[in-house]
């Protein structure tokens, strides 16, 4: 029987393309979501840090 390497390469090539493409999709999406999550965390940290300031200025008010 002839060896038909062309078909073997086609099969393995197709598998490689599909699996690598899926892996890249997963990788890229994960990076997107991780970045978005870090941004969200920074935002919530900032809004948390800015809260004590109005209370301090309110306390200093009647003194001077």
């Amino acid at each position, binding site marked *: *029987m*002839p*060896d*038909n*390497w062309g*078909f*073997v390469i*086609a*099969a*393995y090539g*197709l*598998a490689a393309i*599909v*699996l690598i493409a*899926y*892996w890249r999709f*997963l*990788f890229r*999406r*994960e990076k997107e*979501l*991780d970045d*978005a*999550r870090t941004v*969200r965390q920074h935002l919530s940290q900032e809004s948390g840090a800015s809260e004590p300031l109005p209370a301090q200025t309110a306390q200093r008010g009647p003194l001077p």
Partner: protein
Amino acid sequence: MRRLLGGATLLGLAAGLVMGFVVAPRESTQGNVQRIMYLHVPSVWVAYLAFGVVLVASIVYLVRRAEAADQLAHASAEVGVLFTGLTIATGSIWGKPTWGTWWTWDARLTSVSILFVMYLGYLLLRGMIDDRERGARFAAVLGIVAAFNIPLVHFSVYWWRTLHQPPSLMKPGPGTMPGVIVAALLVNFAAFTLLYVYFVAKRARLLRLEAEAEA
């Protein structure tokens, strides 16, 4: 932890390739085309594994309403469909030089195709429901129905193709394969299983991140 898994997966796949191309001998009746089996058979195995996980995760979700179970089911179904598609494609590519035709309604290709369409429908259902909780519930029910359908598909298609028909179209059974080929298959089984776990873990994590982002 995931790095370790990823590394192990790559190692496994490399080992699989080596086994499939270097260690395993040229098969006597089919020639080197038979090497496609080292892709095709493990893919089927992963597909069935994936859909089995979908069944278990679906039941767990319905009973305990754990979001993680739903995410696992979704991820596993997606990866399962991926590998089912791969099974069909590699089977078809193998079939052309072996049987002379791209497609044939033999037992394996037919039942795997039905599987493919069933779980594609599962993904479609998920895509069409906006309500997260309802989507999870319905998908779980569908996942259970589909899984119970698998043995029915199997038997019906097998009987449809082999009864009253000479089994000339059947692929060579595993019983008569030489040890080296079996070993190569097993290595590829392991490699593909690792790949499945890696993909599902990543995909489920993505789903969890997406859910968090929406909250």
